[in-house]
């Protein structure tokens, strides 16, 4: 928290104009511009490290005793570059968004700081620097989540986020301190050099603690509960940064500590990651498919995608420990590529959702609709993002999901039984995830943007300002590159794989070219050629439909068929709730929706219905079962402890004296 208090005197330094009228114009430009510039620096630095020499930076005076230590290598570089790229798009977008939403001074100052924190974490070369940067990131993101703190939902989300992110921090802190103490050093390089001398007990303890800590940041089950609350309630540019860049840092921690410093671990490490990943992916996508809140849907989709990435990392770890390095390299490539493409399409998704929110004030899909005519650019943008998130061909997520599936099906089947059992189940989980992901994204795009507006606010929507569109266009361009030319990222991935010697780095990763061929196993795909072929095929189909047009009367625009009634009202359309109802019914046992149907009959006859009330509440079942008991227990304890707090100063002095006596007795 100290960071933010230190930051507040820096207001004039950031160039906030003295007059209120000027600030409302300059503030967003400065804040967004600074964010974008920081992002550009991050991107350039990340790329220079990936393709150049590793860099080191020591600032001794900044921290007492240990100093700040920054070590940049290709692994950190790829995360820095990703965060930087996201920040560029978000920064440009934030100019228009902050202006339109009249952001206060505090979030404007915090936004660049948050980006700086996220850029520092992967650059950290020592435990102390890492923890410091981590806390900078956590604290600034909390402030940003609380930007609209006057709303109740935001405050609840803020409390949830604050507690969970700090608990996660405690887990990471303990793990890294243990690691640092037994690895006899603060710097990661020292720890890596001494990693072999660690006892299995220490390694396992550090592994479990870091998976919990980093997993909670990445939104993995069961520590995901803050994510679908905090990400939707934050202002949309912040949601984009959190969902596309901050969750990646959790994955970075797992890769850096568990796979690089401590790896390769025993079989159960990989298996643990796979289980965490698969459960998170399926649960996340299931919640997304029944969610009716546009931003919450995207947030659950983040849990899903982080789950898929963790699953891929777990598969890589398991395959390495079962001596199948070639396939492990494919799994690792899948994880990294999915991380990158997720960053692209999730940025775009949240930015487009932000445009909708800014234009209509609505996140509720049940009240949206008809935006395709009113906000055509935003609609196209969200369409690109949704296609990416659904993992279909021509979408940004297709190639990485394909790589993941290939790595799972090419696991050696003459190896241990564990692999033979884990891989089919993982394919099942991934397959269910993609299937439900398609349903979730069709719902988000179809119900939210197509058809007719379901409320007056959606009816009055206007297209977003230019800077917001520019930010989205950048993210969309990245999505298209991921979809049709993933070969563009091939050199980057090769360089990163090369610095991960413990996870299949010995063997070359998949050769991502125009035609993507897998090493050592038979399998190939070409997303670019597939896109070209599909466009040709669609043109062919259109040409076929022209057959017989000489006989046709001229084109007519007619009303929709209304079953013989006068006209259709927008209320007759399917809403997001009704659209997802069949899925909700199928997965009733897992989702446990709280539905209530009240039928009021006419007094004269019970066969005639006067009114039907339908109410459904989708609460997160994990939260209900796992968190509420804990919260209740803590509250009970607090009530007990409260009895000792009577408000009497004499009593408190007595406590102090007794405490001191006990300490003296024990210390003696």
């Amino acid at each position, binding site marked *: 928290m100290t960071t933010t208090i230190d930051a507040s005197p820096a207001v004039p330094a950031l160039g906030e104009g003295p007059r209120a009228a000027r600030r409302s114009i300059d503030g967003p430009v400065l804040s967004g511009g600074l964010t974008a510039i920081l992002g550009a620096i991050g991107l350039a630095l990340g790329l220079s490290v990936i393709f150049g020499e590793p860099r080191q930076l020591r600032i001794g005076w900044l921290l007492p005793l240990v100093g700040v230590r920054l070590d940049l290598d290709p692994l950190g570089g790829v995360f820095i570059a990703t965060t930087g790229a996201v920040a560029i798009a978000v920064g440009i977008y934030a100019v228009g968004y902050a202006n339109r939403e009249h952001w206060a001074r505090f979030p404007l100052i915090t936004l660049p700081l948050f980006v700086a924190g996220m850029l520092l974490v992967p650059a950290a070369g020592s435990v102390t620097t890492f923890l410091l940067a981590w806390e900078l990131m956590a604290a600034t993101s909390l402030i940003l989540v609380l930007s609209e703190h006057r709303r109740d939902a935001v405050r609840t989300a803020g409390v949830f986020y604050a507690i969970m992110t700090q608990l996660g921090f405690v887990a990471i802190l303990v793990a890294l301190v243990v690691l640092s103490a037994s690895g006899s050093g603060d710097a990661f390089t020292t720890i890596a050099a001494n990693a072999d001398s660690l006892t299995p007990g220490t390694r396992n303890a550090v592994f479990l603690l870091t998976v919990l800590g980093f997993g909670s940041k990445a939104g993995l089950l069961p520590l995901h509960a803050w994510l679908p609350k905090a990400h939707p309630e934050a202002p949309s540019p912040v949601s984009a940064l959190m969902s596309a860049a901050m969750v990646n840092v959790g994955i970075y921690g797992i890769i850096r500590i568990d796979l690089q410093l401590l790896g390769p671990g025993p079989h159960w490490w990989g298996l643990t990651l796979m289980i965490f990943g698969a459960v998170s992916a399926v649960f996340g996508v299931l919640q997304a498919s029944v969610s009716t809140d546009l931003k919450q849907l995207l947030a659950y989709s983040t849990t899903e995608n982080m789950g898929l990435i963790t699953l891929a990392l777990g598969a890589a770890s398991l395959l390495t420990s079962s001596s199948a390095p070639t396939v492990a390299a494919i799994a690792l490539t899948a994880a990294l590529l999915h991380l990158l493409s997720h960053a692209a399409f999730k940025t775009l998704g949240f930015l487009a959702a932000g445009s909708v929110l800014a234009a209509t004030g609505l996140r509720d899909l049940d009240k949206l609709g008809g935006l395709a005519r009113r906000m055509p650019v935003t609609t196209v943008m969200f369409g690109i993002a949704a296609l990416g998130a659904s993992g279909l061909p021509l979408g940004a997520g297709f190639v990485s999901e394909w790589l993941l599936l290939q790595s799972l099906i090419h696991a050696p089947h003459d190896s241990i039984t564990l692999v033979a059992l884990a891989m*089919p189940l993982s394919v099942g989980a991934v397959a269910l995830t993609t299937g439900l992901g398609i349903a979730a994204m069709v719902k988000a795009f179809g119900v939210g943007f197509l058809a007719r507006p379901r409320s007056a606010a959606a009816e009055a929507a206007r297209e977003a300002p230019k800077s917001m569109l520019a930010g989205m266009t950048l993210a969309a361009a990245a999505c298209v590159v991921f979809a049709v030319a993933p070969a563009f990222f091939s050199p980057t991935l090769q360089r990163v794989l090369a610095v991960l010697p413990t996870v299949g780095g010995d063997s070359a990763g998949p050769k991502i070219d125009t035609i993507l061929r897998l090493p050592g196993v038979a399998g190939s795909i070409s997303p670019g050629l597939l896109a070209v072929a599909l466009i040709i095929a669609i043109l062919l189909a259109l040409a076929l*439909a022209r057959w017989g047009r000489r006989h*046709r009367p001229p084109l007519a625009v007619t009303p929709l068929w209304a079953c013989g009634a006068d006209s259709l009202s927008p209320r007759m359309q399917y809403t997001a709730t009704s659209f997802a109802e069949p899925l909700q019914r199928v997965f009733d046992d897992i989702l446990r929706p709280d539905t209530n149907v009240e039928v009021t009959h006419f007094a004269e006859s019970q066969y005639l219905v006067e009114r039907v009330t339908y109410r459904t509440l989708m609460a997160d079942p994990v939260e209900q079962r796992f968190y509420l008991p804990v919260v209740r227990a803590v509250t009970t304890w607090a009530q007990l402890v409260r009895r000792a707090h009577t408000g009497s100063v004499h009593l408190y002095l007595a406590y102090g004296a007794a405490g001191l006596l006990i300490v003296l007795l024990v210390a003696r």
Partner: protein
Amino acid sequence: MSALAVAAAALQVVGVLAGAPLVVGGMRQVRARLEGRAGGGIGQPWRDLRKQLRKQQITPRGTTVVFALAPAVVAGSTLLIAAIVPLIALGSPLDSVADLFGVVGLLFLGTVALTLAGIDTGTAFGGMGSSREITIAALVEPTILLAVFALSVPGESANLAAIVSATANNPEQLVSPGSLLAFVALAIVIIAETGRLPVDNPSTHLELTMIHEAMVLEYAGPKLALVEWASGMRLTVLLALVANLFMPWGIAGADPSLLAVLVGLVAITVKVVVLAGLLAAGEVFIAKLRLFRVPELLAGSFLLALLAVTASYFLGTPTS
């Protein structure tokens, strides 16, 4: 890749284009005869297409480009699948462009396009059909991918030519438990994906039960023709694909001769006719399932696919 291999791929596309209405007509005719009706004849779907293509183009008020383009996307993706999969010959020039996962992705791309078109109309029927269709698609996808996995184990690749040639070289694999289970699982999901009984009734127009027809209710004239044509092509391609995945006999090699291509064409025609006839005859004896019973059927097929994978993993002998 020889010129004949390219020609064979082109022949596959043309064959599917021309043959799909005949397959649909044939299935309707089999059903009609078994039910004691005269039937419209095998050529009726072709006559319907010709009639609809000459009708007026109609744009329902308020629909967007999604509605206008969806039929072309469905038809286009199906045509592309027809060019990729080995129906007549193995050496399709597009074989390395998309494997079986890619083909499944293309299939779902078409489904999604039509689903979005259904929502785009903004009518209750459109939304209802779309909601049901996407629910079924979401449950079908896991089974298809698992079945693909089971099939890719013997050939150690998910590329279609590799799978088909592995089966052709080792026909005894077909009677392995993994292969049989995968066949049943795939058959169920293909019935679901093409909207046949007992999942959906292609000839119903009863609001409460229809899925595919509800989604395309607003289409008329040339666009409806394209939708119907595409759904016929999907059925044909999938039947042909299943036929070749499990009964690859007669298919021409990667570098075929003219005779081999002709033999392949005859072989695939016979296989599709037999499969379509069996499917149509089977449909006479079953009724449509209640909508909320369908997930149970699909869960069953998912379990079969999972068993198929496990069986091929534990019982399968690596070919290499």
